[in-house]
């Protein structure tokens, strides 16, 4: 099946406590919203090809909880959970997010981020933006530190690919 790849995600740092992720999709926003909020569908994309999602729980109402768990290809379990704060169907979801592997000494409260996902449609295409607002430097640093570990792993993967391409 051919898939229209609409471009890669862009990540910017609008302030030192925010991370903004933007991506356009070749689909109306109802469908993007559906894929974003339906557990069986989330399980198919959220893993980013780095493992398998074992849990995708979504209680889509204000005050409802969500939890995503995946097992990475090298056997690590990575979990995130949070609570929905605001839901405007097909338009906007505000939720908290806590990484379950927070470093010792960082409380869940400090470590949580508030994520705002916005779905905007133009000409049948949908722009999804996710604004990650960290609540403290500690949570931002936790995100950055976890990313750096993955970064090393990715670098090794790329190295392996590069090596294979030379065969």
């Amino acid at each position: 099946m051919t898939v229209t790849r609409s471009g890669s995600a862009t990540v910017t740092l609008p302030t030192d406590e925010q991370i903004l992720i933007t991506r356009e999709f070749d689909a109306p926003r109802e469908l993007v919203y559906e894929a974003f909020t339906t557990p069986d569908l989330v399980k198919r994309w959220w893993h980013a090809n780095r493992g398998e999602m074992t849990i995708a729980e979504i209680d889509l109402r204000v005050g409802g909880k969500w939890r995503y768990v995946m097992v990475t290809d090298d056997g690590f379990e990575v979990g995130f959970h949070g609570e929905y704060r605001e839901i405007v169907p097909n338009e906007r979801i505000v939720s908290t997010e806590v990484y379950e592997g927070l470093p010792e000494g960082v409380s869940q409260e400090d470590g949580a981020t508030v994520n705002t996902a916005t779905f905007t449609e133009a000409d049948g295409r949908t722009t999804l933006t996710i604004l990650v607002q960290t609540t403290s430097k500690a949570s931002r640093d936790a995100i950055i530190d976890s990313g750096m570990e993955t970064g090393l792993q990715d670098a090794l993967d790329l190295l392996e690919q590069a090596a294979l391409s030379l065969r």
Partner: protein
Amino acid sequence: MARAATTADAFNAVAEPRRRQILDVLAGGERPVNDLVRVVGLAQPQVSKHLRVLREVGAVDVRGDGRQRLYRLNGHALKPIHDWVKNYERSWSDRFDQLDVVLEELKQKEEGDDSDA
């Protein structure tokens, strides 16, 4: 590893769009302030203010050359941020590439439903 205060500051330094623009220009090589003023389109005092912030976190270095002050990028100070952003971006790109596959199926299903109706 303890996170040095300068790392946090560097994140702050690059969070400002004009400063990122200055860094982009300097990525192409050493430049005098006048060049930066022209490219960024801000008045010199504002550009100088941004340059001061960037210098404080070690993101740019400056040297005198006759009557000019030449600025250049110190990539080393920014590499952790760059690496992190690129990696984070790659994770989300991979994630969204999977989402494209799901969306394509949803679209086809919807078209199928429409033709049934």
